[in-house]
């Protein structure tokens, strides 16, 4: 029975989110469109080839450096049993949840406030640097999970014979090789798909070119063909590694198991804590602090101005992000529950593909598909934004919920069924309360992502709609740096305070329930 529901849900997702991509791919191949041959030959032009190589080069550099840093951080958080290790892990994840453009602005501020020339950051090397910091948490999550899952006795068997350093390089590293490769590949795909960072740092890559061709030159044919080539690149990469990536529980809320064979000495723990703390300080805390310093450099004037510019967008963004997060949780729970303990590779691949596609490509796909007489009612309404959120982040929400559901023994629901509960009753009374923490976590994470979404929203936002990231991105092109920073700070504080408020409510509810029971 659940297979039928899974098919129905998959069909719905395909109809609203995947068909636009297929439609775009078919158009880029000239099926159902009238793209001139000249547009295809443009792909072979020196400039396009250079752009493609440039994009691949940046993606590869980000993948290598972020995977290396992720391995070090993953080792620190998974193998050292540090005090406040969970807090450290959450703090190290911050760059992943901040809108990428805010990070780019923060790093420009780093150079401006410290009196250095920001030209260093307005370069491919700068883009590599910023993207590395943004994507290192993904590598850290994947690799810490893989390191945690290594059978402790495999490590111990080596430690009997050689020092831990040698055991790490000869036994542990080969065992996490699949995770290293997958992490590198996923980050490569995400890096070549990223739009806002290269756009803000004026670095020419495929995504910025597609955006320019589409939005500035109205050369839709070129934009579609370039999008098709980027979709091809992402799909090939994902096909190679999707089975590994979709199987890994790297986004887990709730209990995690795994015993480490390695017990770090107090001295080593201090050393590793200093490394992780130093990285956190330099990569995240300093640029964000300097963003605040830059925003406040002319006094409160720019902050007030930024607030004034953005106040209308705040409510609208909040509302859309709430709807987006709610829908993401519903779809995510639906998929994860209906998949159950079985593998559903087609569903997994569908979700990871829509997640990893470049945001501007997703935007073009949505425009081409929905900007038709039959579907115009969606295209001209805020629904198009919600669909964009669904396409971009359903993989994340589903992953969080599926991992949590997998931790709950099937026998708990089965016990309810044999006690006379209906399928829905068992789901509502047994499973949902047990995954409430993950439902909340998935909502908050989806909300944060939706609040910061720029690449797709900037392509599809309908008339009368104005969102925080779009407004900031539009103004920042001609605004002084301190005003740009002030707008980013306002967006950051707004998202942070809403998220903080949600967590406070959750915490209070848990305390009250723990103290007085559910009634």
């Amino acid at each position, binding site marked *: 029975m659940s297979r039928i529901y899974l098919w129905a849900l998959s069909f719905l997702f395909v109809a609203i989110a995947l068909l636009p991509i297929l439609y775009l791919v078919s158009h880029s191949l000239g099926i159902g469109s009238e793209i001139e041959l000249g547009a295809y030959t443009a792909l072979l032009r020196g400039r396009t080839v250079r752009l493609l190589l440039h994009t691949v080069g940046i993606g590869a550099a980000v993948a290598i450096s972020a995977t290396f840093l992720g391995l070090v951080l993953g080792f620190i958080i998974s193998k050292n049993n540090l005090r406040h290790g969970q807090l450290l892990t959450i703090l190290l994840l911050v760059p992943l949840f901040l809108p990428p453009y805010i990070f780019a602005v923060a790093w420009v501020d780093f150079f401006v406030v410290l009196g250095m020339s920001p030209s260093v950051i307005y370069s491919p090397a700068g883009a590599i640097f910023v993207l590395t910091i943004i994507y290192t948490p993904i590598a850290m999550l994947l690799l810490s999970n893989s390191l945690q899952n290594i*059978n402790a*006795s495999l490590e111990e068997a080596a430690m*009997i*014979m050689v020092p831990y350093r040698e055991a790490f390089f000869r036994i542990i590293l080969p065992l996490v090789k699949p995770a290293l490769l997958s992490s590198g590949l996923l980050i490569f795909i995400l890096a070549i798909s990223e739009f806002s960072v290269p756009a803000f740092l004026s670095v020419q890559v495929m995504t910025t070119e597609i955006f320019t061709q589409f939005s500035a030159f109205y050369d839709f044919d070129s934009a579609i063909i370039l999008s098709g080539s980027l979709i091809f690149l992402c799909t090939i990469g994902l096909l190679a590694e999707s089975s590994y990536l979709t199987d890994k529980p790297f986004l887990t809320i709730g209990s995690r198991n795994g015993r480490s064979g390695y017990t770090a000495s107090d001295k080593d723990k201090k050393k590793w804590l200093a490394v992780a703390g130093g990285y956190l300080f330099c990569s995240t805390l300093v640029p964000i602090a300097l963003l605040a310093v830059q925003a406040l450099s002319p006094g409160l004037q720019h902050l007030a101005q930024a607030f004034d510019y953005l106040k209308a967008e705040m409510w609208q963004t909040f509302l859309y992000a709430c709807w987006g997060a709610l829908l993401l949780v519903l779809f995510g729970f639906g998929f994860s529950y209906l998949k159950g303990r079985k593998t559903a590779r087609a569903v997994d691949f569908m979700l990871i593909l829509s997640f990893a596609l470049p945001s501007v490509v997703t935007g073009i796909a949505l425009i081409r598909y929905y900007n038709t007489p039959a579907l115009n009612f969606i295209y001209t309404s805020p629904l198009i934004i919600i669909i964009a959120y669904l396409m971009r982040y359903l993989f994340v929400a589903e992953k969080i919920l599926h991992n949590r559901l997998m931790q709950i023994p099937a026998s708990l629901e089965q016990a309810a069924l044999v006690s006379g509960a209906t399928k829905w009753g068992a789901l509502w009374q047994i499973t949902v309360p047990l995954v409430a923490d993950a439902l909340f976590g998935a909502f908050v994470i989806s909300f944060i992502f939706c609040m910061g979404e720029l690449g797709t929203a900037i392509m599809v936002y309908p008339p009368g709609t104005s969102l925080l990231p779009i407004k900031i991105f539009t103004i920042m092109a001609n605004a002084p740096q301190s005003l740009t920073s002030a707008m980013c700070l306002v967006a950051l504080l707004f998202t942070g305070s809403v998220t903080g408020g949600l967590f406070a409510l959750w915490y209070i509810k848990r305390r009250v329930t723990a103290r007085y029971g559910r009634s």
Partner: protein
Amino acid sequence: MAEVELRNVSKSYGKKQVLQDITVEVKKGDLACLLGSSGSGKTTILKLLAGFEAPDSGEISIGGEVVSGNGKVTVAPHKRGIGYIFQDLALWPHMTAFENIAFGLKARKEPDYRIKVQETAEWLGVKDSLDKYPSQLSGGQQQLVAIGRSLVLQPRVLLMDEPLANLDVKLKKVVREKIIELKEALGITIIYVSHDHREAFSLASQLIILNGASVEAIGTPEEIRQSDSAFIKYFIEL
């Protein structure tokens, strides 16, 4: 002189006391069997002896040298001269049987490691399986490769964590005979963890019975059989 000695060793995980004031001596060449029910701290003793963990208090000596004490591991696992056969065998899946057995010898940069691996494999009867990966070996062959990986380094103490637990009756007999053979041939000290008293009585020259977090009794199988302890009587009857 005792080859292995635990003096007043205590260990807890969080609030759970796993070992409390344990004092045990095992003589050179003995096969001592740690016997007790689940959760009685048998494997923890092996982990402490191996140096994977430090005791909260007390002292551990191997060959007269203090290897752990004052809550710290003072001699690293690879410098203790021990071998360890894990319950799940812990054969490295990305290495062949040959590479598994040769790993420690290569780390020591022994030039004739190939010959030593071949000799050990021949003695254990797994010479023909050396180029296979663990997943391609039968359960018994995996067990023998795990034994070979430890033995090839000629440890002075061999720690075995329920090595027969996952084998069928036939394979149990083969591996049990190999263990007796290696003890007699090499004269190494073996500390063997088991929860099966029949297995323990048939193999051990010394039995250490654990109950809760403490030692209930120490003695030869005969002495233990004649013990008046209600726990031992109950345990043996099970």
